[in-house]
């Protein structure tokens, strides 16, 4: 089966470090198979750039299966591109047509400085987790795993929140560059489970504080984050975070 290939024009953001102003540059992507992924399309463009003695387009990726959260950039104005619930490594070129022009740019947020081209620094997310996104248990003998039952619906809901891959699309899509979906998902995951309950008040206060410290914006309930989330994390996680926060203010001293 010889598949048709397509020719595309790419407008790609090139930026040589955080202090560089950056600019769009145009590249031809020719002979692209509709079965290749978006990142494999970029791989092919990069191979040609290398042969021409030019610097390839810098982008991050690792698992290329939609689970590690390493990849991510904005495609035609949408974080992770046009297909819902899909990271850019799982986006296939059959979503585009021969002759298309595709604009590619990095996540843009104050808290995610650009490292190079499409690569950004997301360490702010790790610092939010450090501030309290865990259950404080050490390694060692623990009660039997079945000692505390967790109703299946609760455990399933906790899983839905825990499925966040920390890619940062929510921040990139938010006009305020807020990190509320990311932070809310971790707070919800742990607040739902009995193991996470004892620390829930302190946790939400510390994590929200850290989120502000990092320079993320405030959530004004726009909902773009949910729309672009490759794991379909619901905005109800943000509502839960806000409720947890209020609860903590009134119940903990």
């Amino acid at each position, binding site marked *: *089966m*010889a*598949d048709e290939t397509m020719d595309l024009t790419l407008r790609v953001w090139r930026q*040589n*470090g955080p202090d560089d102003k950056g600019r769009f540059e145009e590249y031809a992507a020719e002979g692209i*198979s*509709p*079965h*290749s*992924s978006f990142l*494999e*399309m970029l791989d092919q463009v990069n*191979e040609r750039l*290398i*042969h021409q003695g030019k*610097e*390839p387009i*810098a982008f*991050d990726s*690792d*698992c*290329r*299966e939609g*689970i*590690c*959260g390493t990849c991510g950039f904005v495609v035609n104005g949408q974080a992770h591109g046009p297909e819902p619930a899909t990271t850019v490594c799982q986006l*296939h070129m059959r979503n585009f047509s021969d002759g298309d022009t595709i604009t590619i740019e990095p996540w843009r947020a104050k808290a995610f400085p650009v*490292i*190079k081209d499409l*690569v950004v620094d*997301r360490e702010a997310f*790790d610092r939010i*987790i*450090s*501030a309290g996104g*865990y*259950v*404080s*248990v*050490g*390694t060692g*003998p*623990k009660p*039997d*795993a*079945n000692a*505390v*039952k*967790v*109703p*299946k619906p609760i*455990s*399933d809901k*906790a*899983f839905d929140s*825990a*499925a966040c891959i*920390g890619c940062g699309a929510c921040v990139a899509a938010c006009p305020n560059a807020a990190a509320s979906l990311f932070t809310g998902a971790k707070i919800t995951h*742990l607040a739902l489970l009995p*193991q996470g309950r004892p620390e829930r008040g302190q946790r939400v206060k510390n994590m929200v504080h850290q989120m502000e410290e990092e320079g993320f914006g405030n959530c004004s309930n726009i909902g773009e984050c949910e729309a672009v989330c490759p794991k379909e994390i619901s905005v109800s996680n943000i509502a839960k975070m806000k409720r947890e926060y209020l609860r903590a203010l009134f119940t903990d001293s």
Partner: protein
Amino acid sequence: MTTLDPNVPDGPLHKKWDNRREELKLVAPNNKKKHNIIVVGTGLAGASAAATLGELGYNVKSFCIQDSPRRAHSIAAQGGINATKNYPNDGDSIWRLFYDTIKGGDFRSRESNTYRLAQVAGNIIDQAVAQGVPFAREYGGELANRSFGGAQVSRTFYARGQTGQQLLLGAYQALQRQVERGKVQMYPRREMLDLVVVDGKARGIITRNLVTGEMERHAGDAVVLCSGGYGRVYFLSTNAFNSNATAAWRCHKRGAMFANPCYVQIHPTCIPQSGDYQSKLTLMSESLRNDGRVWVPKNKEDCSKPPEQIPEEDRDYYLERRYPAFGNLVPRDVASRNAKYVCDEGRSVGRGGARAVYLDFRDAIEEQGREAIKDKYGNLFHMYEKITDEDPYEVPMRIYPAVHYTMGGLWVDYNLMSNLDGLFVAGEANFSDHGANRLGASALMQGLADGYFIVPHTVGDYLARHRPDPMRPDHNKFDQCEEETRQHIQKMMDVGKNGSRTVIEIYRELGKLMYDKVGVSRTKEGLEEAREEIRELRDQFWNDVKIPGEADNYNKMLEVAGRLADFLELAEVMAMDASEREESCGCHFREEYQSDDGEAARNDDEFTNVFAWDYKDEGEWEKHVEDLEFENVELSTRSYK
């Protein structure tokens, strides 16, 4: 050749780990903070080890290539993690998990290590639940289990199809907690490029900052290497793009022995390659073989026809034909080998000439109904369709084996210490527990067993016994290692300025050659050719590789070039190991050594052992041997007919 001593404790199998723990020397609480420990890697093994060591009070430095420790390759594991909780009351026990692991590994692993793994497995589940890992549960609120990879008991715990993700996030969160406490310093976007050995002891590492290109020195009292497997030597595999062997290889070149490099697991059910632009292969859970039937056309001429036009009598359900007892459920290695054979015969059904066989759900859908199949495999079918644009409810899936896991790795003793004092190796990077073949859902178990429950104690014992003097990064050994690393990179960049072949072009060629000659099925002749071709390719790399950009900032291709340079050396010892292991066992199939009906033939008299390779010079190794003593199980032959 010397015989290696695995340092196994005395006593009956089930008492060995207790006995060893009682012998282990302890570091006093006040002294722990005087010790610096380097942990390379933040997958399940590394994150759990670093978190636990930090919590115990040591000063830990933790390193990973990714921009965050949470993104290590372990995140991609799907199916589950084994443990002998025996919650379903179906007769599981520590002994049974131990025996299954030993037998699955085709009697080429160390009894004592494998038994300990089965012993501590239950603790992992308790630990993970306490951390808030949302495992699947039954309606009654208890944990759910399933049977995995042909096991006769249901001992696999899972979190939908994302078990690795949830376990890793649990370990990552424990790690970040220690970062907050100041006990772990995190170094993301760093690549370890050398091990610093002073007076025969591992005392530090050299890393490259992947954003600025700077060389950095880190000194410590012990180094714990948790850098994952080397499956990416085949270029195409189910492993993540950045998975590599460099950290392990640099330790090897500094004296750590590499054991059983030829043991590579090739997983039968992956989505086939669809073009030569492809960068990785996606695993489809092997549970699909419970209901899917594997076939290819009987006649080559039919291969290009749409499958529905091939009548029943012209289809060859080759696994059912050759293995009537197990049929489509034969173990991974048998399924993979047979897929290769039918494709070698020209009966491949891949798109555009790619190699593939059918995995057909037509009969299952007819018998059980579409809904029942959707219930079981809905998400997998969805993923398959998303990638291939073909609907497996309507047309058979196309699958082909892909490299998945490496059982070989740095040699370690019972304490998970390499032959170099102070260098510990955990997770997929070591060789110890899976023999010649790993069972499904046992890698996650091993990574966390090593990291949470074994290494933190054995490292302490080492420190208490050796009391290493403080080490500073201005020691002249650090000067020397840093300089050598710098020169290595400079040499690549110098060639890279004028070369003509891209890193990826050479890399793909290495992958293909390894796949063809050091893959599913091997011959003496093929292995010798492979060695020759690997050397030629290595020459090409060092004379004609093209590398863009500069060494002083983010340069992905330079990173990959460095990893490829090491793979080009590792590949050779893999071929050599495969050539010298003149038997077939587990995933290592030598065509010369098979039974009359084409099955793997072990040679227990000569090869009930581990080969551990000691690096001498480029392309030169000395072989050492560890004899495997089986005191508790009887060596038997697998049969699936």
